[in-house]
């Protein structure tokens, strides 16, 4: 089960998006209609042991200037690597990322963390510590 | 050289090697060889009941018992006796404490040399763990004997019929002078090569300090002077000698030197400390050399018989 993922060899503490507090309500609705999504909560990861990770979909993407859905809803190429071209919005992440992965597959929880914290780290923007996203604020 | 030789035997394997040397010595010196055996110890005081040292039983000792023991002795040493043509043999049995009887007989016959084995215990079980130990009879005889005591522990591989190489080992102690006289006169008499050997002891530290090389070389030089002053200056008309001074653990160096020179007699003083002969414990180096040497070792404790030699 233990394999050293070659792409990320640094130790990171888990982190999540820092909510920008009450600002989000005042913004006009973004172009897409996902403003009802405010947290990342995967049913597959029950029993949940931490408050859900705060993630106001539209507000975050607008703030981070993300318009290509595939940035997060990426696909999978033939040898199982991440494929940014193929857009898979709508399919649940657990389809490809099982909770306890088979060989070569990234576990679900790890995928969430790699995706969010990885991006925050590259852009040096956004929280990296646990309570940064997992807050019940 | 040796008119009378006393060979004290236990009539057991412990004395076989000593027997060979004793008979060789007697043959070459055309000497009178006393085959001396203490066969029993009195059970109580001056009682007639005697405990046989070999069998352990107690019985009355009469003439035919003594003849039986003598006959047994002669069968053990049959071929050595056959080979004794020039020397004469006299068998002597005794009852009593071994070392007392040996010393009493030696004094009574005024023998020139005593030949003995080193100990009578079969296996040398403790030498590997701590230290090899010689027998108590030999220890007491070597201390009290008026004449040199030739101790043979292991088969003598080099001494054919002649003493050709004699090694005198010294540590320049007072006791070593008697040993020197004995070695020197024997070599002069027999025409053997005399090696004067000294081993500087560097095996243990003195007050926690091990001697440095300069210190060792200074000791070697000093030893050479002492050789000259104490021994060579006392030799008249004798040049068949060689002085050799090594450093190391004394008994190891002596044994290596003896093997190297194919020695067939090592002469050493019985002890080194300046203690009266009667109280002196046998030297630890002598003890180790006696037990490990491949040729007889003569331990000399007193000047008496040595001064009488020619």
């Amino acid at each position, binding site marked *: *089960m*233990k*394999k*050293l*993922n070659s792409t*990320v*060899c*640094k*130790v*990171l*503490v*888990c982190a999540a998006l820092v909510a920008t507090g009450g600002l989000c309500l005042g913004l006009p609705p973004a172009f897409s209609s996902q403003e009802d999504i405010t947290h990342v909560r995967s049913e597959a990861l029950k029993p949940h*042991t*931490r408050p859900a990770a705060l993630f106001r979909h539209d507000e975050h993407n607008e703030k981070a200037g993300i318009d290509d859905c595939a940035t997060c809803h990426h696909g999978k190429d033939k040898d199982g690597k991440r494929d940014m071209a193929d857009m898979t919005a709508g399919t649940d992440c657990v389809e490809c990322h099982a909770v*306890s992965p088979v060989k070569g597959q*990234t*576990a679900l*929880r*790890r995928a969430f*963390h*790699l995706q969010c*914290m990885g991006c925050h*780290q590259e852009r*040096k923007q956004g*929280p*990296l*510590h*646990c*309570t*940064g996203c997992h*807050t019940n604020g | 050289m040796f008119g009378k030789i006393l060979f004290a035997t236990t009539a057991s394997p412990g004395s076989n090697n000593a027997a060979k040397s004793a008979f060789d010595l007697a043959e070459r010196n055309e000497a009178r060889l006393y085959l001396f055996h203490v066969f029993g110890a009195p059970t109580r005081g001056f009682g007639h009941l005697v405990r046989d040292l070999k069998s352990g039983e107690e019985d009355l000792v009469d003439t035919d018992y003594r003849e039986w023991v003598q006959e047994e002795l002669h069968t053990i040493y049959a071929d050595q006796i056959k080979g004794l043509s020039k020397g004469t043999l006299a068998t002597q049995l005794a009852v009593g404490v071994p070392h007392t009887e040996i010393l009493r007989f030696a004094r009574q016959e005024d023998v020139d040399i005593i030949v003995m084995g080193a100990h009578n215990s079969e296996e040398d079980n403790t030498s590997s763990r701590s230290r090899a130990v010689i027998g108590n009879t030999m220890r007491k005889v070597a201390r009290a004997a008026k004449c040199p005591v030739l101790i043979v522990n292991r088969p003598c591989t080099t001494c054919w019929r002649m003493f050709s190489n004699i090694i005198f080992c010294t540590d320049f102690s007072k006791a070593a002078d008697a040993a020197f006289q004995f070695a020197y006169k024997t070599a002069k008499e027999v025409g053997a090569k005399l090696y004067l050997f000294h081993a500087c002891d560097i095996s243990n530290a003195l007050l926690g300090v091990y001697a440095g090389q300069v210190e060792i070389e200074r000791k070697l030089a000093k030893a050479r002077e002492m050789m000259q002053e104490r021994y060579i200056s006392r030799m008249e008309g004798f040049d068949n000698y060689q002085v050799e001074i090594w450093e190391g653990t004394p008994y190891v160096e002596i044994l290596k030197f003896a093997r190297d020179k194919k020695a067939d007699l090592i002469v050493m003083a019985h002890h080194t400390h300046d203690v009266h002969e009667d109280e002196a414990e046998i030297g630890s180096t002598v003890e180790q050399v006696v037990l490990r040497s491949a040729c007889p070792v003569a331990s000399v404790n007193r000047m008496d018989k040595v001064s009488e030699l020619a």
Partner: protein
Amino acid sequence: MQTFYTIAVGPLAWFAWAVFLVGSAWRIFSMASLAKNKEMAAVAYFDTAYGMRSIARWMTPFATLGWQKNPVLTFATFAFHISFILLALFAQGHAILWEYAFGMRVWALPPQVASALTIIATLSCAYFLVRRLSNSTVRFVSTPGDWLALGLATLPFITALLVRQSVGDPLLMTLLHVLSGEAVLVAIPFTRLSHALFVPFTRAYMGSEFGAVRHCPDW
């Protein structure tokens, strides 16, 4: 603050682990070689079987006279050490770390259990602190080194509690928790905490000495 946090979980973490592992290896190796060339009289009689027996015995609470005669201290010691090890390896945040960094699937403690353990550990440390002040023998012999070790050992638990109860700025608290953990790692080979390295050896030596040479239990 954010960049400081990135450094703390990044290069500083690698540095702390390196110092801990290399430092411990070096301390143990140098002590072992010192023993080999200065204590052969003791090493020659070493018997691992009796050594292990003594370690096993002393690792069971109240199984030795020492533990029985100091019950509260025994409870506090075992509570602290067990929770320290469990939390260090299987605390939920740490489990995520193992997984995030190395992809290692590590079992995680349920959060309520983790919090309970943290509280127990903190209370044990508090007891150690009180005892070090109140017990006349301990007060008489305590040195600054002991206080340093106790302080260092307590910090990670306190900061973990603060993070859990989300007291103060969460980023700052998490940062302090990370830094205190790293401080403990760095301190283990060089302060009083080095007993973590040498206790197996001293315990095994005493066990072997009492077992093999003295034929008598050492508890």
